[in-house]
């Protein structure tokens, strides 16, 4: 069986704690061949045991690219390193986590290796001949598309929540992979970085429940956040709320923010513009609280309350707390 390369996402590399999206990719990779994880950095450098986790979820091999020329720069060196690994292993596919960085690595890798690229897959299954067939959600979630790569090595970026991680022990053999990085690839560099304060809430794109607030909050997100916390949810926001400076852009749901597809999406004071829908339309269950009964968001909901979001969410938070006893 051929190898399937899985690029370990950069959030996992930061502290060695392998995150859910990478486990999902390993699970998907097993459908297509033998998963080989690609780890950029030193897996023994953190207090965690990333290699054990990768192996537990099916990694037969773990290629370690431990080279400051790769880790210190932006995406170009990572794409060069992966291209060298593709050259060496001729994998059945390369799976990369979707997201700004992942898509850029994939874009460069596709050009370098003369391969077709599919971005933002929400599902990947083996086709009749065993090659990967992807499912994507396009046009603001209005269509689903099945596609496959017809040339080179299929390079596929996969969205979070596209599979349920399943354990399946693999050998997890560590293999150092030395790379040579060109000067050109090192021409772009991060010169300053200001980490965002951790919220203690689940990651927006990975959360099972998301509670979002819009312009209707009037800038007061306290009820939205309290309701999110009582449900163990992530907090999201519309662009109007982000543009008003109430929430950082990292919390924006929609066309130019995050796409989320949770089990439950709660929209408070959000009208439901097409660009917002683009980021949440595929949620399993949708709930909205809006004081305007004609708000377009009500066209999407499984359950809606016409009313003031502050009082409704505050009362609902109390009721949930009571129920939990």
């Amino acid at each position, binding site marked *: 069986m051929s190898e399937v390369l899985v690029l370990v996402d950069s959030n996992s590399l930061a502290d060695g704690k392998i995150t859910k999206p990478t486990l999902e990719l390993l699970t998907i990779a097993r459908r297509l061949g033998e998963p080989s994880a690609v780890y950029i950095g030193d897996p023994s450098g953190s207090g965690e045991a990333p290699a054990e986790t990768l192996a537990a979820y099916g990694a037969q091999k773990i290629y370690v690219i431990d080279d400051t020329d790769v880790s210190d720069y932006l995406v170009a060196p990572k794409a060069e390193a992966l291209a060298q690994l593709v050259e060496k292993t001729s994998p059945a596919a390369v799976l990369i986590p979707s997201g700004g960085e992942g898509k850029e690595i994939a874009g460069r890798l596709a050009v370098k290796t003369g391969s077709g*690229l599919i971005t933002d897959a929400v599902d990947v299954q083996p086709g009749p001949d065993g090659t990967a067939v992807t499912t994507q959600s396009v046009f603001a979630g209005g269509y689903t598309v099945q596609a496959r790569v017809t040339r080179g090595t299929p390079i596929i970026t996969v969205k979070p929540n596209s599979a349920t991680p399943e354990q399946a022990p693999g050998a997890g053999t560590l293999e150092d992979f030395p790379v040579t990085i060109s000067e050109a690839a090192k021409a772009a560099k991060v010169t300053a970085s200001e980490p965002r304060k951790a919220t203690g809430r689940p990651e927006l794109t990975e959360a099972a429940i998301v509670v979002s607030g819009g312009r209707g909050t009037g800038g007061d997100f306290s009820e939205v956040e309290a309701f999110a916390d009582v449900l163990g949810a992530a907090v999201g926001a519309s662009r109007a709320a982000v543009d008003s400076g109430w929430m950082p852009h990292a919390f924006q749901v929609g066309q130019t923010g995050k796409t989320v597809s949770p089990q439950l999406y709660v929209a408070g004071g959000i009208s439901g513009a097409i660009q917002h829908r683009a980021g949440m339309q595929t949620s399993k269950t949708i709930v909205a609280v809006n004081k305007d009964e004609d708000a377009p968001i009500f*066209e999407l909901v499984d359950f809606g309350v016409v009313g003031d979001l502050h009082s409704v969410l505050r009362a609902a938070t109390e009721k*949930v707390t009571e129920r939990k006893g």
Partner: protein
Amino acid sequence: MDAMDIVVCVKYVPDSTADRRFEADGTVDRAGVDGLLSELDEYAVEQALQLKEKDAGASTVTVLTVGPERATDAIRKALQMGADKAVHVVDEAIAGSDAVATSLVLANAVEKLGAWDVLICGMASTDGSMGVVPVMVAERLGVPAVTLGSEVEVDGSTVRIRRDGDVATETVEATLPAVVSVTDQSGEARYPSFKGIMAAKKKPLETWSLADLGVDAELVGLSAAWTEVQQTEARPPRTAGQVVADEDGSGAAALVEFLASKKFI
């Protein structure tokens, strides 16, 4: 700051508020739906114009688009906003091109333009929305790319952007020439003024074919795509749910009941 040659890549896309469709061959229906300049590329034009204003107008802003005849609508809008000149690459063979092929055409067009300093793109096209064309063009041209900027600044031969990432806000730098992509957080795009609309009529617009670029038609278009759409399916409309009015706190009670019935609590 020296005068720069700034290139802005803009795409003509189907209107995202219209009913977008697929053709039988799995390509986006571009004829049946009204098109316009991708809203996200207006931010790229805006940043280009701001860079030009910072050096008192000495720089030149060239609009570059690869698209059908009607893509001139998108070009005209960018010229009306204030770009100086435009290049439209149009060729029957290009129809149905994927990102890989589009980036090949764009990179060859940029090379034909001659010397340039900054190439500004939008963060993603509102139809394809892959957000990969900018890095692919950079890869082909062998230049650095700094992407998803919410602020752009050129300082001598360095371009610097601010990027609001998931875990951090970063400052990212590269040496010119470089590709830059900007987000919708980079600042509201201007509307064309009346003067701008009049002036645009006299601005130079060149039309290039694949032959002008020396790009083999075999390498582009639907038949050369490196990916294949097998099936497209409209998502079934969501079935209308229950909407209740909140009276004296009844809304919260009903909401919690609903969530409990779905086992969310």
